[in-house]
């Protein structure tokens, strides 16, 4: 039976939202294409009950089996120098048709080196299509097709997994996976961790970044830099879970570059056309620009943010209906 490997990203002890969506997508492909979904956990030394807790989460999110490797080498951030050997070992052993990474940056670090190392095709910012092909002379077959937009925005690349005699490494877009797709199960297969390829490379310090949630967003609202803190806080409270508020500071835009949201709303003055700093567009992404006229809505953007905040609250009230 074919295999799909899903890399599990855990931040501050929690499986990230893009990872849950990744497992849901892997489950969708696995169910229709008849493939086993393996979740791959790479962590520093941790108590076994903690591993079981995470294993329950990932199996409920859609994994058939959970593979885990724990080592001091894997305790730091996911870098190819420390984690790459393990990924290559798993790919060599399982020969998966798909090796998937979630949105949020981990794929940028690990995906392309893995693809080069194992001679795989590579699709960054991918969407997965399942297409049924009917034929008069053969039973209907299911095609698994990964698509992405080129950075030049002049066309798409399509990779048909069945046409290649080699695996496909892909980074998926973000999305929401709201309901469990499997049974929580704590069975974990422990893997030995190979020695890192570059042991002299080591982390000397790390600190959490305050804007890191932006990397994991499935939707985003971009607002002007001059918005006040109170207007931003008000709007943030009205946004649905998984939606990031992004102001054009270097730090936030740095985080935004690895986000792969499916919806982006841009609140900006009417004359502002600078969209150079959008993250890479993913298949199916909906981008909406709401212009406001500074002359009509006072000279600061807080009125525009207040209008969006009010619209969100009214829309939510309509959806919830009368009490």
């Amino acid at each position, binding site marked *: 039976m074919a295999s799909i490997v899903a890399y599990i990203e855990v931040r501050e002890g929690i499986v990230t939202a893009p990872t849950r969506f990744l497992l849901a997508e892997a489950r969708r492909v696995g169910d229709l294409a008849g493939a086993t979904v393996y979740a791959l956990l790479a962590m520093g030394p941790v108590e076994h009950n903690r591993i079981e807790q995470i294993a329950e989460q990932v199996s409920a999110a859609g994994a058939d089996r959970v593979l885990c490797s724990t080592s001091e080498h894997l305790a730091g951030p996911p870098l190819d120098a420390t984690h790459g050997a393990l990924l290559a070992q798993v790919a060599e052993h399982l020969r998966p048709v798909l090796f998937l990474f979630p949105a949020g*940056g981990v794929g940028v670090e690990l995906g392309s080196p893995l693809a080069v190392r194992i001679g795989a095709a590579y699709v960054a910012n991918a969407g997965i299509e399942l297409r049924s092909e009917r034929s008069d002379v053969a039973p209907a077959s299911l095609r698994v097709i990964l698509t992405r937009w080129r*950075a030049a925005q002049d066309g798409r690349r399509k990779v048909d997994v069945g046409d290649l005699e080699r695996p496909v490494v892909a980074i998926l877009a973000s999305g929401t996976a709201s309901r469990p797709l499997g049974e929580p199960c704590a069975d974990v297969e422990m893997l030995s961790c190979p020695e890192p390829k570059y042991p002299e490379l080591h982390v000397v310090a790390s*600190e959490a970044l305050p804007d890191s949630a932006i990397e994991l967003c499935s939707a985003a609202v971009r607002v002007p830099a001059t918005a006040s803190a109170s207007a931003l806080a008000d709007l943030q409270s009205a946004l649905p879970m998984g939606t990031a508020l992004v102001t054009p500071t270097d730090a936030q835009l740095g985080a935004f570059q690895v986000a792969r949201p499916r919806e982006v709303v841009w609140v900006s003055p009417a004359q502002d056309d600078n969209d150079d700093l959008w993250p890479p567009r993913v298949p199916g992404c*909906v981008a909406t620009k709401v212009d406001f006229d500074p002359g009509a809505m006072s000279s600061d953007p807080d009125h525009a943010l207040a209008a969006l905040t009010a619209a969100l609250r009214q829309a*939510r009230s309509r959806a919830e209906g009368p009490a």
Partner: protein
Amino acid sequence: MRVAALCVGGGAECESIGQARRCGSVERVFHLDDSSLNKADFFTLGMVLAEAAQHLCAGLVITGESSDEEGQGLVPAALAHHLRAPLVSRVQGIRALESPPNCVEVSLRASGRLCRLQSPLPLIASVPPLGLPAGTAGETELRPIETLTLEQLGIDPSRLVFRPELLGIFVPGKPVPVQGGTFDEAADILLRRNH
């Protein structure tokens, strides 16, 4: 450390070479252009860059994270693979260390954290579009372009193998453009995906 700029392909008049020639911190500018590389895939390009880096005795290779065309970020990985050197991405800063010798300290974003790590050379560091700050060395007189050839690198162009299938089939088209909308429409879009 001495700084050299290397460009493979693109023509000697390309903007990248022009910027490198004017940059005060760049001492030498190298260009390798060969018609056999016109259809080079990322793996071949990475191999050629690795050979060029070895030819130039480069210990630290800094690259852009991804191209403006495909945008996948495969060339730095292929370069690192052929050079047998570690690759670090999303680099925010680099500094040479006095001790230990031949080592650098790199700051990068990874998994929601800002990390500082030390690495001996050789090392490949890829920088995102908003990465390292612009150089402060100022502009200078135009550096001359020094030409490299595949022959100098010991590469036989007739033996280069291109594998376009690794990128997939190209289907021309444009993404749905940014749509104008009202605040109510934007709110519905943001809330719809949760229903």
